[in-house]
């Protein structure tokens, strides 16, 4: 038996995903350890976002397998037959994975605080008063304690995204996925979001981040994954990827986004 400590938190094994005739993930394999911060970079259309979305089953995969905490995602073996998991089971699996979206996707009919405490109350069955207390602390952590009673429409993009991060953190996810969290923001609002993400990464939260903020990637990543043409092209430390790796595709991409060696 393999001791559980050696099981990676996320294991993506030979995953292929197609949209019609278009292959968006082509035999992708990747492992993420607990506490690790993995940043995915690459040209748009490379499959970075799709890879994140397959982890919490917002996209179904066509072949291969994904494991989170050693558990097969979306399927289970029952008496020697591989079956789709039940809806309840899929919901349970999603709870351990938090997600922050490019478009924030805050619930528009709820205040910032209600957004943060809704899932803890309805899913984790935490008492409303306790959830409120924890929710306010989380909003304080992202610097928005004074905006608790504001609706998303009354917040700037950067503030909305920080609420969205607090909302994801409220479920205490084992892994937190960020799908281009700053791409929809005005340039002057990007830093406030990156600051919060940096702070979370310092607290040992396992994170997978798709981003075009190369300086940020270089700074917070334990490992950087370069994707292009639906495949993982290179995996390495920030130094390897940004400085020493000779891969021509990678160098061309980094040159195009203005990264100097």
């Amino acid at each position, binding site marked *: 038996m393999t001791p559980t400590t050696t099981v990676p938190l996320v294991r993506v094994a030979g995953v292929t995903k197609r949209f019609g005739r278009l292959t968006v993930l082509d035999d992708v394999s990747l492992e993420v350890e607990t506490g690790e911060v993995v940043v995915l970079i690459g040209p748009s259309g490379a499959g970075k976002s799709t890879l994140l979305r397959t982890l919490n089953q917002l996209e179904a995969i066509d072949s291969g397998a994904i494991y989170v905490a050693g558990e097969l995602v979306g399927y289970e073996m029952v008496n020697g037959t591989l079956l789709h998991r039940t*809806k309840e089971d899929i919901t349970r699996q999603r709870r351990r994975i938090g*997600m922050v979206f490019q*478009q924030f996707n805050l619930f528009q009919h709820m205040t910032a605080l209600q957004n943060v405490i809704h899932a803890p109350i*309805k899913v984790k069955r935490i008492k409303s008063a306790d959830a409120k207390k924890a929710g306010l602390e989380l909003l304080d952590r992202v610097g928005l304690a004074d905006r608790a009673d504001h609706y998303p*429409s009354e917040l700037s993009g950067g503030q909305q995204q920080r609420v969205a991060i607090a909302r*994801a953190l409220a479920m205490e996810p084992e892994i937190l996925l960020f799908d281009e969290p700053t791409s929809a923001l005005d340039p002057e609002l990007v830093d406030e979001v990156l600051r919060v993400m940096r702070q979370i990464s310092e607290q040992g939260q396992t994170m997978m981040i798709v981003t075009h903020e190369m300086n940020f990637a270089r700074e917070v990543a334990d490992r950087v994954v370069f994707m292009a043409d639906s495949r993982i092209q290179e995996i390495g430390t920030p130094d390897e990827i940004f400085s020493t790796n000779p891969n021509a595709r990678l160098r061309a991409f980094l040159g195009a986004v203005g990264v100097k060696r």
Partner: protein
Amino acid sequence: MQSTLQPEIDISTARHRHRPSQWVASVLVLAIAALIIWTFATNKNVDWGVIMKYLTFPSILDGLWTTIWLTVAAMAIGIVGGVVLASCRLSPNVLLKGAADVYVWFFRGTPLLVQLIFWYNIAIFIPRVEIGIPFTNVTFFSASTNDVVSPLGAALLGLALNEAAYMCEVVRGGLLSVSSGQSEAAQSLGLSGRQTFTQIVLPQAMRAIVPPTGNQVIGMLKGTSLVSVMAVYDLFYSAQAIYTTNGKVIPLLIVACIWYLIITSILYLFQSRLERRFARGIVRPPAKRKSNRQASSRTTVGLEGAAR
């Protein structure tokens, strides 16, 4: 150049120009209004004594009550049916979707009056209602259709089934107006499919569902007058019954119209409150900057309602 030399001009004191066409239009409207009022005031057929007498006449109030509960019951069934049909039409299950498509196609494609007369004569089509095991002789329950489906039941059935088809489209439009990112966020937080629908998608869809539903309720209130062809004593048929015996056609039609107007006015107020309730997060009532938009959206709804 000029403007920089004349800083003392402040456009906040500017006045609107009066255009002659506006004067003409105003005079025309006033003239028409005066003509209508004069016609009603001097017309011998508009007997206000008779109108006041029949406004609270027992059979009229009974009819009013029938109209109200028929509206409420048919709308309630129609809304529930509409939600079910809408979720079927949005379902990935091809059979469910197909069945709902055909339902909506049929009930929207045939006149309500024809449907009502069909339900009224359902006993000709299906003489006996039996509950048992299909294709066998086992029967648990059997009765004449006329005993089971009264004219009032047929009226309710006809109105509700027709309404469900329209409410389906209203609900479906509302659900589609909520971005898919909302349910993705809910799912990734671990909310179940049902929770995602009832707690996240539906409350936001309500903003798009309430105004057209208000129109549907008002349409239904007036649509119930069609059941007079089934000899159901609703408000209109009760008025008809009186004027066929005493010949006071116009006063009794006015009596019916007054009651219809009173109820639609109450519904209108109720709808405005509902709309404010579901506008949470989009339009905040105390915020003045949004009041323009709110007012204009309500005007639109009012006009649509009136046009029906």
